[in-house]
């Protein structure tokens, strides 16, 4: 007898036998398969015919800039591109540095490169050059990160921290008199740009606020606890749209005449405050799942409160609630569509105004299908990144 141990036999069915085994193994399964097959074919055919023949995509092509950037002046669009190019450089760099540890980072890099080059193929002129430049920067950043390794970590983290303010500064400009970066008022920000800004600001600011509220609710100090409970329950008890209406309609009446707070800023604050209340409860759920032994072990190590919370408890608690947090951030991203009701021209708001253009009247299906597709792509990207993060952190495995 050979001492070679054979691997277990893996059955590799041919496609035909797979179909037979899974779809046509009994007469009623065969019937069901045929019926659902017909249904899928019927619906799929109608969708494809509509997509390729009926739909008038000219409305999207003509209004692409409006849908992406709102009324952002065409002469200043380079500022958006420059911000995105910086983002591509930092992203490539991060993927290069941490890609060796995290599984799937290579796939993400290639996916992003394909996406950028694909977009460059279908666009023309300035957009094409910028997209090619972004692809180049992404590759360059990846290569630099890959070869420099850990040495660059601190630089890249600083880059991530200072990118959002730099981007907003680029968008807004330095002032009305500035030659290089003239002021572009937030009333001209719109479309996907505004939707993403509201989302990013909402996530970035509601996260620390929510973590603090979660800790506050578990505090043994009565005032802090009461305050946190009151805040969370009050904000959770009202719909987001009422907060937005409060910010857009009530607030101006309480301010003296002539004092105006920027409308986009008001929406950002309302979204942040709303999201923080939900986030606090999600994080609290994670904190409750940490066994008491972890706290005791941390004290036994001689760590003080801040150290034990920051180094032992919070990292474990947050790791546990990643799926919930990402779910909440995706919901937040889609909730920003509500600002179209208070007169801001986000993705949905700009869609409504595109539909009012006399030459494109009645093209609701095309516009809303395109906007839905944008929402789906971005939501799915967020979900995918979170899955990779879970895999690399081993959530659910240990």
């Amino acid at each position, binding site marked *: 007898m050979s001492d070679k141990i054979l691997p277990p036999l893996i059955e590799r069915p041919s496609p035909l036998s797979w179909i037979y085994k899974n779809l046509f193994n009994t007469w009623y399964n065969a019937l069901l398969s045929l019926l659902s097959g017909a249904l899928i074919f019927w619906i799929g055919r109608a969708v494809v015919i509509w997509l390729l023949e009926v739909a008038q995509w000219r409305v999207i092509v003509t*209004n692409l*800039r*409006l849908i992406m950037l*709102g*009324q952002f*002046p*065409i002469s200043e669009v380079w500022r958006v591109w420059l911000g995105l190019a910086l983002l591509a450089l930092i992203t490539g760099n991060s993927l290069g540095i941490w890609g060796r540890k995290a599984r799937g980072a290579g796939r993400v890099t290639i996916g992003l490169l394909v996406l950028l080059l694909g977009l460059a193929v279908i666009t023309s002129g300035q957009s094409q050059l910028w997209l090619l430049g972004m692809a180049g920067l992404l590759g360059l950043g990846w290569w630099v990160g890959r070869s420099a390794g850990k040495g660059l970590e601190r630089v890249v983290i600083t880059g991530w921290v200072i990118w959002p303010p730099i981007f907003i500064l680029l968008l807004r400009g330095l002032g009305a008199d500035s030659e290089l970066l003239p*002021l572009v*008022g*937030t009333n*001209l920000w719109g479309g996907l740009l505004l939707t993403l800004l509201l989302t990013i600001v909402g996530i970035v*600011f509601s996260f*620390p*606020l929510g973590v*603090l*509220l979660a*800790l*506050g609710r578990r*505090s*043994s*100090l009565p005032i*802090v606890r009461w*305050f946190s409970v009151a*805040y969370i329950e009050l904000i959770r008890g009202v719909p987001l749209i009422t907060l937005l*209406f409060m910010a*857009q*309609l009530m607030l*101006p*009446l*309480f301010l*003296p*005449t*002539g*004092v*105006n*707070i*920027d409308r986009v*800023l*008001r929406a*950002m*604050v309302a979204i942040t*405050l709303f999201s*923080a209340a939900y986030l606090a409860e999600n994080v609290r759920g994670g904190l409750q799942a940490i066994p008491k032994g972890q706290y005791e072990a941390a004290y036994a190590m001689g760590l*003080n*409160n*801040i150290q034990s*919370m920051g180094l032992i408890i919070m990292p474990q608690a947050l790791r546990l609630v990643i799926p919930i947090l990402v779910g909440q951030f995706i919901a937040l991203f889609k909730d920003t569509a509500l600002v179209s009701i*208070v*007169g*801001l*021209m986000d993705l949905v708001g700009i869609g*409504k*105004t*595109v539909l*009012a*253009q*006399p030459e494109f*009247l*009645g093209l*609701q299906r095309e516009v809303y299908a395109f906007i839905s597709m944008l929402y789906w792509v971005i939501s799915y990207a967020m979900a995918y990144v979170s899955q990779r993060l879970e895999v690399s952190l081993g959530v659910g495995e240990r």
Partner: protein
Amino acid sequence: MSKKFYPLFGLLIVAALVLAACGGAPAASGDASEPATADTAAPADDAAPAPAAQTAAQGETLAAVVARGYLVCGANNQVPGFGYVDADGNFSGVDVDYCRALAAAIFGDADAVEFRPVTAPERFTALQSGEIDVLSRNTTWTLTRDTELAGNFTATTFYDGQGLMVPSATGFTTLEDLAGGSVCVQTGTTTELNLADAFAAAGISYSPVVFEDADSTFAAYSEGRCDAVTTDKSGLVSRRSVLADPSAHDILDVTLSKEPLGPMVRHGDDQWFDIAQWTVFALIAAEEYGITSANVDQVKASNTDPQINRLLGNEGELGAKLGLSNEWAYNVIKLAGNYGEIYNRNLGPDTPTYIPRGYNSIYTEGGLLFAPPFN
């Protein structure tokens, strides 16, 4: 956990909340749009929470607009023909063009205007709180709005009213053609009542086909379940646009109710009210006298009619009386066109949003547009 740890968190939470709630204010003060007036609105501060309490002081609005360098106009961005954003990112429409005319009157520059899209619930608040200088957003002139909502309607720029839409194939053009026919109408609204009144007054019989909401009303019409459908004319235009073949439907030149739409300004600043009102009159007068953006230079140079000379600033000091330059009306006509040009650009026969002019004609042509004399 030891207790000394918690006060720190408490402080952080309070600090974070304070920052989140108020942190924006200083940053935004750079583009607060009325810096010059922040401390001059003394009467308003006494009762700030009451919605109707904020009014503008005499001459304050024009001073603020001039200091700022541009007009802030509350507009609609979702009504075809009246207010929307075109593919280049520019606002267009009848209501929008009025704001350009007002900017031309003040600055001699029709582009010195910032459009602030306002939705129906927030429009009056935006006007009261000074976020916008003028509201030009298909708003119907009613007593409540003219009083309780602390606004003043300046003039009617569009006489909207309930209209009727029929399939072009029927060849109907008047109310009488519909005798014995059926009309799709939404129940429980004044629309239904107006329809009954109009047919009763004309002594014609018809059968109403009533529905609970606007969507099913128009769905039934598009399925051919009635000969005509009725709602406000501006609404008919956008509803027609979503029918299978918009060009196969006509809006009759018949008006069943009163919906006068016009620009609105805040209570309390009569000078600003006069400017906003006389800009409308200048547009109407220009059409009456046959002055267009194309021939205004020629008319200004060669005209002998004293009325037109005063309008265009060749004679008298009419502009100065409004606090503007004497060429204000010339600028309006040159840069925005007269009323007819604005109408035809947005709602004329060559546009997809064609509405017959009806009441919106000069009084000499049987309409309601009438400008007081420029004396």
